[in-house]
């Protein structure tokens, strides 16, 4: 049964790759058609950004609206992006042709070159090629994994779980101090054994190492997962699969600041820039564990306040106004408290109570009392 489904998944991937390639070729011919007609060549794509993001109250996820924009070649403001989009499309087409995978960084270097007789580079920074890939996801309707582009591996996981990946069997509890590093594409992983009550996902690798050293996952019978900074797609997809396939609650542990809270927002509702993939990525069951402003008071962390910067404050305001937070009393209360504090606190501030305070007291208490924000 399980075997069959894996094969279906592989087949599905192959089919997706073929379809994605067709979409790329279609895009190319649409542009050529414009040129043949003597029309200003253009690419049409959905608008990304808050203005075109719809919050679906029923599924509680973000979705992309139907605003579209046109990118013209004969328009000074557009022409470089137009070129970038087509160039990255050509690169993806080549990758699919030879069935090889490349990282985002690889794609950047494949596209980067200087246009003859100018000092203009096709792409100057990786963000430009990354954006072009996101655009292609919108245009083709397929994720970048289907275009054979992978994100960098950035996360670690540990727990009493056994999986099968690329023919190898891996026990997440027997991987030393580093844990298992999460691949960028987790579609083909097969769960063979999952023995855990819940998953804690944290934004900081340092905190993960602390919990791993304390064998927190063994004592509490859970899975601990981390990334460095923003949550990568591989991690999000893995969390989603643990949530849907194994019905495990997912708890988020992040800094007490607007950026940490946004990590939770992305996991739960989807991200604004990737709203087109929200249905694949959003995990509506995820809950926020800490650090909340109440924790700051309850655990006496005010001594470790860091003053909010102007940037923090404006980010806080933006989040307050997001539709999915606007009517959420619990979160509005948190936003207001932070505003009143005028300060933020890092997770590691808990270490002032003792190096293992977080694993021995803070987390077990919070989970036992179910002090969670939805």
């Amino acid at each position, binding site marked *: 049964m399980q075997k069959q489904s894996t094969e279906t998944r592989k087949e599905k991937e192959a089919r997706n790759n073929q379809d994605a390639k067709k979409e790329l070729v279609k895009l190319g011919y649409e542009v050529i058609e414009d*040129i043949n007609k003597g029309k200003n060549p253009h690419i049409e794509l959905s608008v990304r950004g808050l203005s075109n993001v719809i919050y679906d109250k029923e599924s509680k996820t973000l979705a992309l609206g139907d605003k579209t924009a046109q990118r013209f070649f*004969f328009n000074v403001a557009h*022409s470089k992006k137009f*070129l970038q989009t*087509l*160039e990255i499309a050509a690169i993806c087409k080549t990758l699919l042709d030879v069935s090889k995978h490349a990282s985002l960084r690889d794609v950047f270097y494949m596209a980067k070159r200087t246009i003859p*007789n100018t000092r203009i580079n096709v792409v100057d920074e990786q963000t430009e090629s990354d954006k072009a890939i996101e655009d292609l996801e919108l245009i083709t309707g397929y994720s970048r994994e289907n275009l054979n582009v992978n994100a960098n591996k950035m996360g670690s996981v540990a727990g009493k779980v056994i999986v099968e990946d690329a023919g190898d069997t891996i026990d997440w509890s027997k991987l030393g101090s580093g844990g298992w590093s999460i691949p960028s594409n987790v579609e083909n992983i097969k769960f063979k054994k999952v023995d855990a009550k819940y998953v804690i996902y944290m934004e900081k690798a340092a905190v993960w190492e602390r919990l791993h050293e304390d064998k927190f996952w063994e004592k509490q019978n859970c899975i601990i997962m981390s990334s460095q900074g923003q949550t990568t797609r591989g991690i999000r997809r893995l969390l989603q699969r643990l949530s849907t396939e194994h019905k495990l609650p997912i708890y988020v542990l992040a800094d007490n600041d607007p950026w940490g809270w946004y990590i939770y927002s992305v996991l739960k509702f989807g991200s604004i820039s990737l709203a087109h993939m929200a249905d694949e990525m959003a995990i509506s069951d995820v809950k926020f564990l800490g650090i909340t402003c109440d924790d700051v008071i309850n655990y006496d962390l005010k001594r470790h306040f860091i003053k909010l910067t102007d940037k923090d404050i404006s980010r806080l305001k933006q989040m307050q106004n997001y539709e999915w937070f606007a009517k959420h009393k619990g979160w509005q209360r948190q936003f207001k408290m932070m505003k009143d504090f005028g300060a933020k606190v890092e997770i590691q501030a808990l270490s002032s109570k003792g190096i293992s305070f977080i694993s021995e007291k803070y987390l077990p208490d919070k989970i036992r009392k179910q002090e969670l924000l939805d």
Partner: protein
Amino acid sequence: MAETTKAEELAKKQRDISVSEFFEKNRHLLGFDNKRKALLTAVKEAVDNSLDACEEADMLPEVNVELIDMGNDRFRAIIEDNGPGIVEAQIPKVFAKLLYGSKFHRLKQSRGQQGIGISASVMYAQLTTGRPAKIISKIGPDKPAHYYELKLDTANNKPLILKAEEQEWDKPHGTKVELDLEGSYLKGPQSVDEYLKEVAIVNPHVTITYVNPKAEQIIFPRATDKMPKQPAEIKPHPYGVELGMLLKMLGNTEYRTLQAFLTNEFSRVGPGTAKQICEQALVPPNTHPKKISRDDAEKLINAIKNTKIISPPTDCISPIGEELFEKGLRKEVNAEFYCAVSRSPAVYRGNPFQVEVAIAYGGNQPAEGTINLLRFANRVPLLYQQGACSIYKSVTQTNWKPYGLSQSNGALPTGPVIIAVHIASVWVPFTSESKEAIAHYPEIINEVKLALQEAGRRLQTYVHKKHRVKNQLERANLFERYIPEVADSLSRITGESKDKIVKKLNEMIKKSDIQQAIMEMETLKGEVDEDTSTKASTKAANGSENHDED
């Protein structure tokens, strides 16, 4: 006792100071502060006089200026004109007596005002080199030329005639002045060279031949044979009269009643207005002017202030005119765009005045740094004390950003621009006798600003158009560079021929942007500077040689 002794002692030291002695000690008041400025002032005074004389005699001026370096910081300045000449008896007084002249006692637009200039130059020459001024003047083809060597008796403000004789001079008429004086010659913004160039800008009817101390000859040819309109002499307007002047006029008048005095000695005062002033002041209109007391005169001044009197006539002003101001600038400054604005005459304190502005943009002028501001009063360039001048104030208070120039707060704008401002008036209110800066009258500042704004708007139209054309070319250029790249990507995606795509895209670009840009380019004349590189590459990429707009 001691006090009287002291007073007596002091009394022994107190005596008359002659005007010449005063200026000898205060030469900076007349523009002889330093050697460089002294050379400029000497030339300036002589040239101003020549031009005034020619214009009054309705003769197209031709002025020769020659500076000879005699070593040891000494220069011989020779200024020669083709003017009406000076009658023999007047020559010593004109050149060697301070405050002697025809221009002080009248209200008429002219370069000189007080009759100090040229005699001060003579005095300065005499003080620094001990040599007399040599003057030769001839008033008509069949008249003899008179030659004088003159010094100034500084104690008595009287001419000392060292030599006087008749001489042969092949000119039909004219005057030539030769002065040996201490000075220093440097080129640059406050040099004789710059001064003469600016004279040529605001006096397009003048031809100047100039030989500088390096023996380089520069000719500033005239751009028009049309003489400027002869400015009319006017009587003072009551609003511009102060108590002292009123008392003096009352004392000097030939009229025997106050009413006749008011109606005849002032402009814009009729019998009705005169009566109104008298009633206001409670002075009977038939009072003899000479019998009016100081108190009554003060009452009259106040009465004038409270009486509505129409503005003075403005036909007494002779502006350069938009067309000629632009022509003048065009012949002396290499730029790509010129425009000029003449305002209608206006009035400050009863004195009519008129503001004109000309702008030259681009060309060889450096794009970095502040603009070059040229100031003129009655067709005379003002080279010193820019910061103290109301023209400077007006320019800095105008917001130039909308007109396409960058400007930091309260400073001159920056850009490749010359802004020339001319103020013509029967009485230009200078801040000092050296006539370097114009006083801050709100009416004047306001008029200058309005003229600047008008000129600014014309500049803006040009600058914006230029930007647009430049952008269009850059854009076309940019697209041309991108086309092979896009075609390459498309060919890799679809397998279609790259060359075919390149060809088709190039056809599209030729049709629209480049053509449009080149057409606009041709309407902008003299467009040569910074766009050449863009144009060249456009042409190369285009493979067409038929757009040779340079």
